[in-house]
Structure formats: C-alpha cells, structure tokens
C-alpha cells in the first residue's frame, strides 16, 4: 500500500464508496446494561444490521453504491472548481502588504493618530475593541454567554436518581463519575506534584495578561482563556471534590452574571444614543501606567473573569455534567 503513488491512492480512496471510510464510527454500540426506551435491544440490533446491509454492503444495493460514487466524484470536482474560482479571485486582488490598498483608509489613520489621546491605551487594538468599537465586544460576550447556557441545558445531569424514565438518555451523576474514571481510577501522583508548582504560575501569568491588556499584547479574552486552562489543570490533578471547595455552581453563576451585567450596563447606552460617545469620567491617566485608559481596565477584568468561568464551565459540563 505504501508503494503506490499518491495519485493512485487518491483514486482508490475515491472509488471506495461502499466501504465506510472511517473505521471508528459505530463505537461500542450495544451495551448490555442499558435499556433503550423507545427502541428495545433486539430491534436496535436489527436496525444496525439493516443499515449495514443497506448502506455498506456491496452486493445488496448497487444503485445506492453508484449514487455514492457519483456523489463523491461530484464533490471532489466541485471542490476543485471552487478552489479554482477562489484562486482566480485572489490573483486579481491588490497586492498583499501594499501601502495603497483600499483597506488602509482614513479610519485606520484616525485610530492610530488619535488613539492614544482619546482612549489612553497604548495597545491600539485593545483600545479599538474596548472603546471605539465596544458595542461589538458586547455582542461577542453575549454569544459566549448563550453558548454556555445551551451547553448547560444539553449536558447537565440531575442530582437524584430517576426511576422509570428512559435511562438511555438521562444518566445520573454517579454513573457519569464511574464512566469518567475508566482509564484513570486513581489520581496521578506526578500530575499532582507538577500542578502544585504550575497552577499558581499560570494563574499569575493570566492575571498579568488581563491587567496589561491595554499596554501590551493580550487583553481580556486571552487572559481569561489562560486562567481557565489553569483551573482545568487543577481539576484534572485533584478531582471534582477538591475543586468544588472553591469553585462550585454558585461562584460560576455569580461571576458570569455580574461580569456580563457590568459590561452591559456600561455600554448599553449605544442602543439609545446611536454613535454618540458618552464620557465615563474616569480619568485617562498617564499613558503606559496600569491604572490608565479610563473604562478599559474594568471592562477587561469583567471580560477576563467571564471567559475564565465559561471555559472551565464547558470542561466540567463535558466531563461530568455538573460541578
């Protein structure tokens, strides 16, 4: 197989339309201890067999096999045509890195020239997204919040056991914990010793990135992601009980809600005033100091806390369905 040329392998891959391309699709399909609710076990096995016969067999369904081959050829041809059209478009665009591009207009010039005077931030990009265009960042924080809500709705498990309801869909927290510990029954010693050293360092670095968001590269989002990563590492090393002592559901709800509410109250006037910028009366300070740039620093801290809690919340929901 490795001696064939790349082109021959590509052709044979396109031709294999009846065989399933990925092996890992139907994984551990029938588990003995589960009841199936709507479909009982025997019918489930029959369904699988019927699908395998209809979709994946070579002899029984020639027309479906031909349709799949046509679809694959058509998809590859369409992708090639699409690439060709896009590359022709790219070749007609102005040169990359040229000075007189239409994208470098007077708006960018204004942001660079008057940015320091009007916002007080040395980092022009942070000053732009948190002062000139703070309304867009408000929308983005809401997108993150909605995603956290939907993940909680989909994956959260109830605390008490439920009898008489379809247990194939709803698991209990006890089952989810047992399921989680298949490969790692005990906590790892190396991970615990290493994370005792690393987690404080990562949290301090994350706080540094957030607080210096208006002076150097970084800002609320990357600092929040770094702190979230530190919390994930702590959870991996020490388990859910120890982490639940300082980060439980109440802390999560409080931090997410208050961070987003502060940002929304600070910038929601744009709904009513249009493009007129309201002065926040916090002094802009000396450029280059941490306590400068007006309202940008509190907004950065709010966004950083929200992002850290959201990232950790995603991870905890995916692993166990609760905190």
């Amino acid at each position: 197989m490795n001696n064939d040329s790349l082109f021959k392998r590509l052709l044979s891959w396109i031709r294999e339309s009846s065989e399933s391309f990925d092996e890992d699709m139907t994984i551990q399909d029938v588990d003995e201890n589960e009841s199936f609710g709507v479909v009982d076990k025997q019918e489930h096995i029959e369904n699988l067999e019927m699908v395998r016969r209809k979709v994946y067999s070579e002899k029984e369904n020639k027309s479906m096999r031909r349709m799949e081959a046509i679809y694959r050829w058509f998809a590859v041809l369409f992708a090639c045509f699409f690439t060709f059209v896009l590359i022709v478009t790219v070749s007609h665009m102005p040169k990359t890195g040229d000075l007189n591009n239409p994208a470098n207009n007077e708006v960018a010039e204004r942001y660079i020239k008057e940015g320091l005077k009007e916002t007080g931030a040395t980092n022009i990009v942070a000053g732009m997204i948190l002062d000139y265009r703070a309304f867009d960042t408000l929308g983005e924080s809401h997108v993150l919040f909605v995603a956290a809500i939907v993940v909680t709705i989909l994956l959260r498990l109830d605390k008490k056991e439920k009898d008489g309801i379809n247990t194939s869909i709803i698991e209990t927290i006890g089952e989810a914990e047992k399921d989680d510990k298949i490969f790692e029954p005990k906590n790892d010693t190396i991970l615990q010793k290493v994370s005792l050293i690393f987690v404080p360092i990562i949290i301090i670095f994350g706080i540094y990135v957030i607080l210096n968001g208006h002076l150097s590269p970084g800002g609320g989002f990357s600092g929040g992601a770094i702190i979230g990563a530190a919390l994930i590492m702590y959870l991996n090393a020490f388990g859910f009980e120890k982490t639940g002592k300082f980060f439980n559901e109440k802390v999560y709800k409080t931090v997410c809600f208050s961070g987003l509410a502060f940002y929304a109250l600070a910038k929601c006037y744009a709904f009513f005033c249009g493009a007129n910028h309201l002065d926040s009366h916090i002094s802009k300070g000396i450029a280059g100091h941490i306590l400068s740039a007006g309202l940008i620093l509190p907004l950065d801290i709010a966004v950083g806390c929200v992002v850290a809690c959201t990232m950790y919340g995603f991870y905890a929901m995916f692993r166990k369905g609760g905190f």
Partner: protein
Amino acid sequence: MTIFQCILLFFLLVCAIAVSFSKNLLNSVLIFMSYSVIMSIVWMLLESPDLAITEAAVGAGITSVLFFVTLNRIHAIFKSAGKKKEDVKEEGNE
C-alpha cells in the same frame, strides 16, 4: 522571513490534508492541535501579537481539550489499537 513563512504555510497545508486522511479519531484531533499552533506562529510573523496569544490559548488549548473530552465521553479512546473490532463483533453477535 519569507522563506520561513513559505515553509510554515506549507506545513499548514500538510496538516489540513492529514486531518482528513487519518483513520483514527485521536490522531485527527492531535494533528488539528498542531495546526492551531502553527497558525499562531504565522500570525506572529504577520505582526499581530494579540491574535497569536489568543489563538494559542484558545485554539490549541481550549478547543482541542474539548475535543479530547468528547472523545472520552463517547468511548472512542482505546487502550490498545487492536481491541475495538473484536469487541464490536462479539457484542453484535450476542
């Protein structure tokens, strides 16, 4: 710097193609993680350090970790590679 940029862009292409051609799901996610890291370095070469930090923390950190946890939750990570097919065949015949 342009030679370095060309080499990195070529690596990006290779990673993007290798993701679709690998059969094991775990390998795909690992290659995707390295794709994110290379993308972060390309952004550093294009003089945008904000994007580089954010992509390194979010793309190669959070997204890949979420993929791994999903694979764990749907029982797609196996201790030994050859174990899966016999398990599926045994349980299908019961």
